């Protein structure tokens, strides 16, 4: 499935149901040897066009005549993010074959992914039997309620697809670059994370600027392959609420230590966020 996602050329319509909001977009995936591109066009307002070339995501807001170019440290798909090695995941998840169903008029095989602990969400993936592409994914909260859905309503696999580009030569176009590439060694961090659920590993530790200012924020990303948790270290700000914040599958918690504050955010249950937050402490000099 991973190889199909990256190497095939396909296009269709995708529906994203996240945070109780439904968004439908035209989706194009072009691939040529090791190079891949995701191209999305929103079908509803706000009208926007999104391009992902490896780790660079460009989003053009057509109404606002604004383009945001986000230089991410790693590349992530808009449809699904999968672990590199499924064999390692068997320690934390149970994988079972589910029913056979039809999605976007294509026959699929359902894979049930159930976590072995309460630190992660359960998932279901509908895989196209012929092309091995994920046509539908569902994420469930600990009570079993669906909290996130991504689904192709139509899909065509092509021999080739052209690589798109966004025209930057538009009059009065505002260009905003978001750089998140100041990679750092985690050993140099002023804090330690003592509580990390099994299977979660460091993806990157970077220094970046945030909140439209020159405020320096350090960002540690942990992932178990399916779910990820971010820890942001920044100067204390009283305006940020301390209570747990939620948006769909994403939960967030703020912890203040001395003059610093840590924002723990992830697409994981609240329990995981609290567990990680409780284990954050400052290193002793």
């Amino acid at each position: 499935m991973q190889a199909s996602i990256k190497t095939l050329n396909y296009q269709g319509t995708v529906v994203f149901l996240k945070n109780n909001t439904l968004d439908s977009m035209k989706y194009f995936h072009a691939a040529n040897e090791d190079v891949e591109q995701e191209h999305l066009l929103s079908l509803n307002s706000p009208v926007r066009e999104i391009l992902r070339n490896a780790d660079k995501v460009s989003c053009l807001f057509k109404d606002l005549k604004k383009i945001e170019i986000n230089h991410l440290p790693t590349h992530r798909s808009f449809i699904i993010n999968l672990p590199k090695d499924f064999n390692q995941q068997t320690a934390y998840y149970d994988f079972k074959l589910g029913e056979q169903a039809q999605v976007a008029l294509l026959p699929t095989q359902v894979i049930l992914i159930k976590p072995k602990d309460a630190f992660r969400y359960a998932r279901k993936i509908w895989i196209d039997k012929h092309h091995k592409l994920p046509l539908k994914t569902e994420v469930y909260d600990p009570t079993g309620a669906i909290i996130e859905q991504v689904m192709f309503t139509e899909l065509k696999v092509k021999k080739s697809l052209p690589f798109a580009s966004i025209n930057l030569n538009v009059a009065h176009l505002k260009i905003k670059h978001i750089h998140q590439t100041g990679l750092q060694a985690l050993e140099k961090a002023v804090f330690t994370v003592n509580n990390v659920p099994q299977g979660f590993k460091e993806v990157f530790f970077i220094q970046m600027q945030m909140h439209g200012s020159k405020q320096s924020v350090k960002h540690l990303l942990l992932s178990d392959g399916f779910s990820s948790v971010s820890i942001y270290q920044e100067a204390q700000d009283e305006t940020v609420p301390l209570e747990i914040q939620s948006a769909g599958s994403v939960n967030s918690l703020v912890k203040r230590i001395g003059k610093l504050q840590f924002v723990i955010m992830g697409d994981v249950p609240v329990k995981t966020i609290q567990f990680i937050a409780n284990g954050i402490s400052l290193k002793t000099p």
Partner: protein
Amino acid sequence: MVDDINQKISCFIDDELKSNETLDLLKECQSNPTLQNKLNRYQTISYCLSSKKVLPIREDFLSNIQQGISKDPLYFSTVNLQPKKSYRTLMALAACVSLIAILILKPSEETPLKVNIVSSSTMAAITTQPEIDQQKTKQKNNPNNRFNDYLQAHNTSLYTNTAVTFQPYTQTASYKQN
């Protein structure tokens, strides 16, 4: 065609159908379960109407239903929508009165009336500049914008999801419980 059969059934129940037509209708009913059901239904209705029997309903029938509805879980928070008082009519009336007063007074005055015309854009700038500043500060301090910044750095879902609104977990948890 359907109306014709319905009429025949009705006539049959009222004993107004001829014998040969009755036989035809019964044969048709025998082979067609839908028609048979219809015949039964018509007969039941006819019986109820002719017998003039009234089914007694418990006195608390309506109140039970109302209680049942009130116990139903509410999935959306109820918002008390009160119509906003509109001062537009009053303002328009006041403007008309002052305009008429100016027009009436103008010929009697010897000196020409000096009117300082302020462009609408300047007016807007005067009245809304503090508001704009306030809005900017609010926007900067808005926790939701801040959490969206974190989310943008965390994953790419902010691009595919138009309205990401962070809410206190206690609110969303109680919403789910309801």
